[in-house]
């Protein structure tokens, strides 16, 4: 098998076409299985969306197999997910209620779609007061299929398989900033990140603790009410007084700063790496997850290319010396792809490091891509269907 090249602009041949197709067959079959209901019951637009999603996801997986690169092809899916999710979501909101703002009546009736970001905020009030502090229904209803139980169930299933890779293969918010980070050719503010990165990556932990404590005091999901940048492109409480106006201002400022401007300037996922409390919470699951990135010290030449490339500053000189990533690694594969010496490798815990790393990568990618297809693929299909609905000649 040819050695992996790090030249991201010209993908090298890593596997033969036949072998790559064979390895892609399980994902293709899985995609068909996932979208069977769409073919049986849905309308024409959703069927077209489903076909597009199947082809898209299968083609990307084939390219991962063929080139041996993970990050580049995953990023295409992830950015598409990030930018298309708001399209489908906003379209459904506008079609249903005529506005992106959540009416109080829907909050009172518990019809607010549940977002996984709230999960850490629910823990303390649920433990002490046996109360779910989110205005949504626990079980799915006709008007709200995205109930708390469904979303937490999906998230937990993902997390057991992927650990913090949720943030790179499933989170429909992270793709937006990854998209903005992909635009510029060179990174600016590099010195700022180098100097302050070690402290900045602690901020999500602080916000997580703040959000958990604050939610216990106020009995409301503090992150949703005050700190979520993605309210700007999803739904938000209707602006009806000074308080909600301030909230909305905070959402827009955080979105503009952390999701658009800073990723563009630094080529990093600044919201994910330096702000998101759910990401910090998700990091804890890296401890129990089977897959990780390791560094073969015998091959590593300490060039720090992986460190500068990592989109979430999840590598430090010390961690590389120890042959590990930091706890906040999202398993996006950027460091593995960029390493010229093949020192960064995928690893299955409990096996020797750098022995058959491609097997560990394959095992990880099958799980990750199957779940990405199930979750992200259906979002993509819905969004494509919504966009077809906008076409004037539909």
């Amino acid at each position, binding site marked *: 098998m040819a050695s992996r090249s790090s030249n991201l602009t010209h993908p090298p041949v890593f596997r033969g076409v036949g072998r790559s197709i064979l390895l892609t067959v399980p994902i293709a079959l899985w995609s068909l299985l996932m979208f069977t209901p769409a073919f049986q019951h849905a309308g024409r637009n959703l069927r077209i969306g489903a076909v597009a999603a199947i082809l898209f996801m299968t083609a990307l997986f084939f390219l991962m197999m063929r080139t041996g690169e993970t990050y580049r092809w995953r990023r295409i899916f992830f950015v598409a997910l990030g930018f298309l999710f708001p399209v489908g979501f906003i379209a459904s909101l506008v079609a249903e209620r005529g506005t992106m703002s959540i009416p109080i009546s829907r909050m009172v009736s518990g019809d607010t779609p549940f977002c996984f970001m709230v999960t850490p905020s629910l823990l303390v009030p649920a433990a*002490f*007061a046996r109360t779910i502090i989110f205005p949504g229904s626990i079980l799915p209803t006709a008007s709200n299929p995205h109930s708390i139980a469904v979303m937490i169930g999906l998230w937990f299933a993902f997390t057991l398989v992927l650990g913090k890779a949720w943030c790179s293969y499933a989170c429909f918010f992270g793709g937006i900033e990854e998209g903005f980070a992909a635009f510029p050719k060179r990174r600016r503010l590099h010195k700022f990140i180098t100097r302050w990165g070690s402290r900045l990556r*602690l901020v999500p932990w*602080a916000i997580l*603790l703040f959000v958990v*404590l604050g939610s216990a005091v106020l009995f409301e999901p503090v992150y949703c009410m005050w700190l979520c940048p993605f309210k700007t492109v999803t739904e938000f409480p209707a602006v009806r007084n000074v308080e909600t106006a301030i909230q909305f201002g905070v959402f827009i400022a955080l979105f503009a700063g952390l999701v658009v401007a800073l990723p563009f300037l630094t080529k990093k996922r600044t919201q994910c790496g330096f702000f998101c409390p759910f990401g910090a919470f998700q990091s804890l699951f890296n401890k129990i997850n089977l897959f990780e990135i390791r560094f073969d010290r015998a091959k590593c030449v300490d060039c720090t290319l992986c460190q500068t490339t990592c989109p979430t500053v999840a590598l430090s000189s010390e961690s590389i010396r120890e042959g590990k990533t930091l706890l906040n690694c999202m398993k996006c594969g950027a460091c593995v792809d960029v390493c010229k010496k093949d020192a960064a490798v995928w690893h299955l815990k409990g096996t020797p490091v750098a022995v058959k790393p491609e097997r560990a990568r394959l095992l990880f990618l099958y799980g990750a891509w199957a779940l990405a297809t199930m979750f992200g693929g259906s979002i993509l299909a819905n969004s494509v269907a919504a966009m077809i609905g906008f076409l004037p000649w539909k």
Partner: protein
Amino acid sequence: MAAFSLSACAGEALVLGLATGPVCLASCGPVVVPWMLVQPNGVRVHSRQLLLFLTARLAGYLAFAAALWLVGSTIPRSWPGRSWLFGSVQLLLAIALVVYAAGFPRRRCALAKPSTDLVQIGEASPPRSSGALALGFLTGINLCPPFLVAGVRAAQLATLSASLLFFLFFFAGTALWFVPFLSLGFVRRTPALVTVARMVAVLLACWYGFSGITNLIERALYG
């Protein structure tokens, strides 16, 4: 008869404290957790800090109980000074968090101003007691819901001593809920953990500061 009514009053206060303790825990937790996490680890240090915090909180309770009894009534919702009191206490709490938990303003660089204690040999200096006392007192007089419930009952009592006794037992009931905070003493302190705790303190200070200013503006605008 008097002894019976006193013991009944004490029992009622204790039960009220135990019943509303989780709310007290949630209310004071945001202040206690970062404060405890910036201390060195060890149960002894944490016990001392928690004891100081609770003592100051008790002082706040008793001062408030005495004031309530002297006023002779509870603070009604329409009381004009309510927003001032709320706002001022929250602002003071924000300042105390910034000064004590977050450690700002920091001491000037020792190299810029050399002093005899520039070189420190042996263990680090013990944590400042004034932080636990200030934070405890301010959370003590912070008008959280259980506190207001206790205030209503205390104001109805016939004597000042009964009112103070009521708050003393109410405090004892709520204080039991604080014991789990001692477990923070077992958490291994790393520079990262202490930094996170300081960041949380700053965030909480911003939150209390915002709430305080909002209350004061509300008072200024609407009277």
